[in-house]
Each structure stands twice: as structure tokens, then as C-alpha cells.
């Protein structure tokens, strides 16, 4: 479609404003994390670090236990996303490819579980974890985080599996494959990009979770990245340097994962909404 030069200029101007609004806070995070502490606490903020230093990142290790936090988050997120994706693949295959009584109701329940907010569930889950004797341990989180990731992953995978033509499976079954063989040898490999993207996204959901971790864990050796960050605020005293450095470190893995999998995630999103 043709647009006039004036419209072109206006378009890029609006785009520029949007990019600045979206990125300035992120730039500020980076900017702060590379300054010396004295410079951070200047009354008048400086828009570029006078000298680029990594003091803030050093403090994450020396003053705070950020490496421990990262280790805990990695363990929780990996274990939960692997477990969830395995369980969800089976459930999603059944819902998407098999005819059975109660299918409508079960897919509805899965969506309910996915959309049910954490603010409603955090007390029941806290009590569950306490009853199991798992409070104050990352195992408590490993037990409850699948309540977030299983409904999400199942819901995503239903649509990925649904996009695989039934004819391919039928052909395999006529050739003598059983249903389960067709599932493992045909459907799962064909849906592999979608499965990987869903697993990655499940990882980021665990990595970024805060409320459940806040109520379950108080022992600092068991704290995850989000709790580690919030611990850098003591009363009214904010350690902005390490806090922003830690924020950068906590964001990098999830941003990379998004970039890698976004093609499939957006694909999955459009798959439904375009119909």
C-alpha cells in the first residue's frame, strides 16, 4: 500500500517513541549496573556511566549469595519444566487426538487451571507444602510449580498436536503401527519445535516466579533468583547497583530463550487466533 512521505515520517516517529518507551527502563538497568556506587547515588543521575566498572556484579557474588540463588533457580526450573513437559505431552496427545467421554470438560478444566491466578492459590499451596513438610526448601517449589506449568504446557501442546494432520498418523497405523507407536514415532517428532518452545517457556515461568517462592521459602540458602533480588532491598535501603546488575543477569537467560523460541510461540498464538 502506498503512503505519502509525511505518513512515512510520522510512522517512524511513532515507532521511535514506542521503542524509547519500551527500552529506556532496560537501558537504565544496564546503565546503573555499570556505574561505581558513588555515581549511582548521585543526586543528579548520569545518563552514561562516567567509567564502566563491574563493581555491582562483583558485589552480587561477594556481598550477596546470588550464585546460590541462580543455582537454586536453575534446579527448580529445569526439573519442573522437564517433568511438566513429559506429563503434558501425554495429556495433550489424548485430548487432541483421541475421542473419549468427558473430553470437553477436561480441556475446560485445563484452561481453568491455567488461568486461575496465583493470588487465589498461594495460600492453599502454602498450606499444602507445609503439610508435606517441604516448606523452606526448593523441593517445596518443585512440588507446586507444575500447577503453573502443566496446565500451560498442556494447553499449548493441544494446539500443536492438533495442527499435525491426522492422515499421517492414519497412514502409519495402516502400516501396522499401534496408537502409542504412532504417538511416539510420528506425532512427537513432528511437534518437536512446539514441544521445545513450550518447555523453554515453562522454564521461564518458573524462573520468573515470585509469589509462591516468597511464601514457601525463608531460608537464604534455598532462595531463588527472584527472592535473591528482593533481598537486596532492606527496609528503605536499596542496593541499586547490585540490584540492577542482578536484574540484568536474571533477565538474560529468559530473553535469550524468548528470542530462540518466539517464532514458535507466536506461531502457536496465531494458529488459534487467526481461525
Amino acid at each position, binding site marked *: *500500500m502506498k*503512503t505519502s512521505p509525511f505518513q512515512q515520517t510520522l510512522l517512524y516517529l*511513532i515507532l521511535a517513541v*514506542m*521503542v524509547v518507551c*519500551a527500552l529506556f*527502563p532496560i537501558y*537504565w*538497568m544496564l546503565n546503573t549496573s555499570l556505574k561505581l556506587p558513588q555515581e549511582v547515588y548521585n*543526586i543528579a*543521575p548520569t545518563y552514561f556511566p562516567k567509567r564502566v566498572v563491574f563493581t555491582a556484579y562483583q558485589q552480587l557474588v561477594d556481598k550477596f549469595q546470588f550464585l546460590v540463588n541462580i543455582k537454586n533457580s536453575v534446579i527448580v526450573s529445569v526439573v519442573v519444566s522437564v517433568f511438566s513437559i513429559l506429563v503434558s505431552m*501425554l*495429556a495433550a496427545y*489424548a*485430548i487432541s*487426538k*483421541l*475421542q*473419549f467421554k468427558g*473430553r470437553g470438560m477436561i*480441556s475446560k478444566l485445563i484452561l*481453568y487451571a491455567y*488461568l486461575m*491466578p496465583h493470588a*487465589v*492459590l*498461594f*495460600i492453599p*499451596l502454602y*498450606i*499444602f507444602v507445609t503439610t508435606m513438610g517441604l516448606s523452606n526448601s526448593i523441593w517445596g517449589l518443585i512440588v*507446586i510449580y507444575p500447577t503453573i506449568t*502443566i*496446565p500451560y504446557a498442556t*494447553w*499449548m501442546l*493441544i494446539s500443536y498436536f492438533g495442527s499435525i494432520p*491426522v492422515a499421517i498418523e*492414519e497412514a502409519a*497405523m495402516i502400516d501396522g503401527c499401534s*496408537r502409542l507407536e504412532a504417538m511416539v514415532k510420528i506425532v512427537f517428532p513432528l511437534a518437536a519445535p512446539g514441544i521445545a518452545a513450550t518447555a523453554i517457556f515453562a522454564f521461564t515461568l518458573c524462573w*520468573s516466579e*515470585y509469589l509462591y517462592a516468597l511464601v514457601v521459602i525463608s531460608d537464604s540458602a534455598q532462595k531463588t533468583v527472584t527472592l535473591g*533480588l*528482593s533481598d537486596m532491598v532492606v527496609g528503605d535501603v536499596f542496593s*541499586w547497583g547490585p540490584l*540492577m546488575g542482578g*536484574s540484568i543477569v*536474571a*533477565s538474560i537467560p529468559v*530473553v535469550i530463550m524468548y528470542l530462540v523460541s*518466539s517464532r514458535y510461540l*507466536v506461531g502457536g*498464538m*496465531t*494458529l*488459534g*487466533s*487467526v*481461525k
Partner: protein
Amino acid sequence: MTHSKVYPDAAVPRRAQPSKARQDGLLAYLLMSPALLYLLVVMAVPFLWALYTSFTDKTIGAPAHFIGLQNYLSLLTDPGFWQAVRNTLLFTAGAVIAKVIFGMAMALVLNQNIRFRNFFRVLLFLPWTIPSIVSVFTWQWLYSDVGGVLSDLLMRLHLIESPLPWLASPSLAMFSVILVNVWRGVPFVGIAVLAGLQSISHDQHEAAMIDGAGMLARFRHITLPGVREVTLLTAVITTIWTLNDFEIIWLLTRGGPANATQVLSTLSYTEGFLNLHIGKAIAIAVVTLPALIWLINYVTRRSLSDSNPAH
């Protein structure tokens, strides 16, 4: 679901029909059993137990006694509760409306023929990808009254004369927490609406142009109706998430100053984990359920009718 029939009868030549259907049913439940069992034990049972607890005087570390509707009745007469209800509605309405407007703008811009479109799409998507807690702390730093860059920028532009009390003033604090939620949430709406926009065919626009429809007319009669469904669905999903946002408000203001930003989720946390009244805390969360169920039902109806995943 669209696939009403999983495979035609002819595809399974050697077996009798009834037993095949039963086998499928059995296999389906077998495959679903790990997920369903897990969700039953860790989600459904604790949830129902909590529902019961909201009818007791349960406090942390003490046994519960059944007290009927007392928790709910005491909420009805508690002005703090009603303020939280009002704040929740204000926060949600303000944030959702702003997210839909800016998200639509983002989608419309990204749908144009611009250079490096994918690159810009990724850039604009970043605020949604970083962990929520990271965006909260970053904004807290932007808002800071000492060394905060937001006030500094506005002062350099001569829009204000002294630093603004972004989070300390009751009248400004609600705006500030909404702004953070909007900053984070716009990309989600934007990407979803963009997907809808891309499904509108070019032919429609061109036909309308040949018929002499101007830009505004085309927007009103082709673009808007074309993305109405997906926008509405996205708005409802965003509403569900915003209604129960906890992190932004809890970390920025703890519901203050003077309860100006106290919403139901923060009130529930305060009641449960600071005042240790578990029963009452759950009652506060339960109060939001009817509205929530209504919204989720909308999403379920819409999504399941086109086998359309919400995310």
C-alpha cells in the same frame, strides 16, 4: 474442538467399532492420568480445603474452628475491604484500557511496511519477556526521589520543578503502579492483535480503497471488525491477570501510602502472612472468584469453540 472425528472408520480396518472406541477412551485416561492426578492432589484438593478454611477462624499455628460466614460478613462491614475492592477495580480498569489502546497502536505500527520489522517487533516485545520482579525494581529505581531518572528527565524538559513523589503520594501512587503494569503488559496485547491484523486480507483493503474509502473509514470498517474478536479475547485474558496482580503493588508500595494502592491480592497477603488470619485471607481471595469464573468462562467458550489456545 474442530476435529470432530479423530479418524475415519475406514482407517482401522481390522477391528470392530465399539471396542475401538472403548480402547481409545481407556488409552486417553491412561495418558492423562499423571497430569490429572497431579492437578487433583496438588491443586484441586488444597483449593477445596482452602475454600472450607475460609469458613473457619484458622490462624497460622493454631487449629481451626468452624465459624460459618463470619469471615465474609466481617469483610462486608470492613471499610478497608471496600477500599481494596475499589482500588482493584480502578487498577484493573485503568491498566487494561491503557494496555489495549497502546497494544493496538503497537500492532498497527508493526503491521505497516516498515524496515527491519521483525527486529522492532523483538525490541518492543522485550518488556514482556523480562521477569516481572525485574521490571518492578527497575521502575522503583526510575521513580526514586533521590537519583531517580524519571523526575530528572521531566525537570530537564521543564515539565516539573521538583522531583515528584511517584510512590509516596496517595494520589500519584495508583498512577505509578498502573504505569508499570501497562509497560509490562502492552507487548502481549500488541503481539496478539498483530496476529489478528495479519489475518486480514490485503484484498479487502485494496477493494475499499478502489471504492474510495479513506484511511479512517478503512480502519473503522475493515481493520477494527477484523481484530475485534482477538482483541476482546486478549483484553479478557489480560483482565484476569491484572485483577490479581500482586508483585507490582506489593513490591512498589506494599498497598500504601495510606492504603491508596491496597488491592485485594495485597490485602489477602497482608491478612494471611502478616496478621496470620489465614481464614480471612482466603475469604478475600474467594470473593474475587465469581468475577474470575465469569471471565474465565468467557475465555473457555471463545477458545474452545475454535480450539484456540489462549496464549
